[in-house]
């Protein structure tokens, strides 16, 4: 039987909180509005109705039996991340969670030879004290302090194929195009196109889109450059294995604003981030457990590519590719023999604006011993 731990309790708590709010509304509205008011998503309504139907189908003989049946049905809902995410995004909960500066998303992780587990992806990003110190000419230069935390946690750490939580505090310098652009010629995009009455108007859509292209086209080729130093902590979800890192990085992204070039016409956007850092592991890391607890230098790289497929292949999807690599420099024979000196993770995906259509990733990140493959279809994730 599946063990209900803190993640499950959080999810059950949210469902109960939501159900309580719905029941409170029941006294004020009609039955139809109570079950599926317009302000709530179809996923929540469907799940809620199905939960009650499933409970009623057990023919409960008392209110306690009915409560138990509802509880069992609620637990079953824990295996549908679409429902859990819809609950997270419901007006009732999102208004409560909006004060918490952490982004949350549930995932169902189906493993090949084990039971499914619920995973929760979390992320927090915050920039501080951004200061522009030069904005004349064609490039703008600025700096800021940046804090990023993200990871995925699951019910049991051993079942987590992405058991790698990172927190980075960075000093970032930026060199960006200055965007000293000119307003388009009057009349090219009629002002009425921003009116509410024309927001879904096809002609205005085309005019506004042409206008945005024409507005940015004078920039031509654009390079976005970030560089700096960061201090970070990497850990598994039990906070047992930890790396402290310190190093420098550089990020460059390219975008061609011209529509008469191949990359610009097809809206293809590559980017590359490279870093060199010293890593100080604690005694619980796989590397230390293999017998080498020394500090080391690591090279890290991340490459991303965005390719809209409509013009290129007539498909209504965006192809994305992300490649992350970590390589220990001058690794000892012991570390190499244990295969703990290099980690790579490749992710290919086809996306729509509202979510992943299908994605495939293979490889591993630090703290994960074996390579794993993942296929994600919509909200379902298969490991």
């Amino acid at each position, binding site marked *: 039987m599946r063990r209900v731990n803190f993640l499950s309790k959080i999810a059950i708590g949210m469902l109960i909180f939501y159900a309580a709010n719905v029941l409170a509304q029941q006294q004020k509205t009609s039955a139809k509005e109570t079950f599926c008011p317009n302000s709530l998503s179809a996923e929540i309504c469907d799940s809620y109705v199905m939960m009650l139907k499933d409970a009623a189908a057990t023919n409960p003989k008392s209110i306690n039996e009915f409560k138990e049946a509802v509880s069992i049905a609620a637990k079953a809902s824990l295996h549908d991340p679409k429902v859990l995410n819809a609950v997270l995004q419901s007006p009732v909960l999102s208004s409560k969670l909006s004060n918490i500066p952490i982004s949350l998303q549930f995932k169902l992780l189906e493993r090949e030879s084990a039971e499914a587990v619920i995973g929760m992806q979390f992320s927090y990003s915050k920039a501080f004290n951004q200061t522009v110190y030069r904005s004349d000419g064609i490039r703008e230069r600025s700096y800021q302090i940046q804090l990023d935390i993200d990871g995925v946690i699951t019910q049991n750490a051993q079942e987590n194929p992405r058991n790698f939580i990172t927190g980075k505090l960075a000093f970032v310098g930026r060199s960006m195009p200055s965007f000293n652009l000119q*307003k388009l010629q009057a009349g090219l995009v009629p002002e009425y*196109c921003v009116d509410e009455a024309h927001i879904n108007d096809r002609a205005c859509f085309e005019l506004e889109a042409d206008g945005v292209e024409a507005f940015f086209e004078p920039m031509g080729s654009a390079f976005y450059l970030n560089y700096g130093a960061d201090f970070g902590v990497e850990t598994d979800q039990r906070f047992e294995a930890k790396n402290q890192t310190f190093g420098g990085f550089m*990020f460059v*992204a390219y975008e061609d604003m011209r529509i008469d070039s191949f990359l610009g016409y097809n809206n293809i956007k590559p*980017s590359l981030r490279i870093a060199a850092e010293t890593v100080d592991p604690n005694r619980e890391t796989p590397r230390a457990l293999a017998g080498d607890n020394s500090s080391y230098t690591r090279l890290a790289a991340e490459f991303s590519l965005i390719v809209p497929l409509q013009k290129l292949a007539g498909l209504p999807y965006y192809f994305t590719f992300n490649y992350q690599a970590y390589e220990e420099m001058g690794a000892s024979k012991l570390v190499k023999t244990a295969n703990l000196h290099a980690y790579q993770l490749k992710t290919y995906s086809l996306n729509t604006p509202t979510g992943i259509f299908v994605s495939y990733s293979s490889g591993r990140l630090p703290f994960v011993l074996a390579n794993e493959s993942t296929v994600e279809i919509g909200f379902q994730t298969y490991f």
Partner: protein
Amino acid sequence: MSWSSNNIAHRLIWIFARSLHRDAAFKHDKLTTFIEGGEWNTSFIIDSAVGASDAERQNRADIFARKFNAWITLEKEAIYEDNYSLSSAIQTLTDAFAPATAKLKDCADTVDEIYRCKGEVN
């Protein structure tokens, strides 16, 4: 305030997002509506690849924020609200669009807070 076509800032961020992704906004002879547009993921809008790290997503969000800021202030003649400047506008927009799970409708009020749009009724 929720995602509303009655709000000019909400309309402008939607117009900008769909203009950057016109292939996705208009397909199968159908234009994505304003209401549907609120459900677009910001990861898609800022051109962040699936599986990208937080740092990568943050950089992408920063680029999107700079482009939107240039367009809304120069082309659409919006001005900053009293407690915002160029730097704080970019920073706030970046923070709003960077999270992996955010949707466009989640960021709309942030846009409204930063800019006083032309024709906006106070």
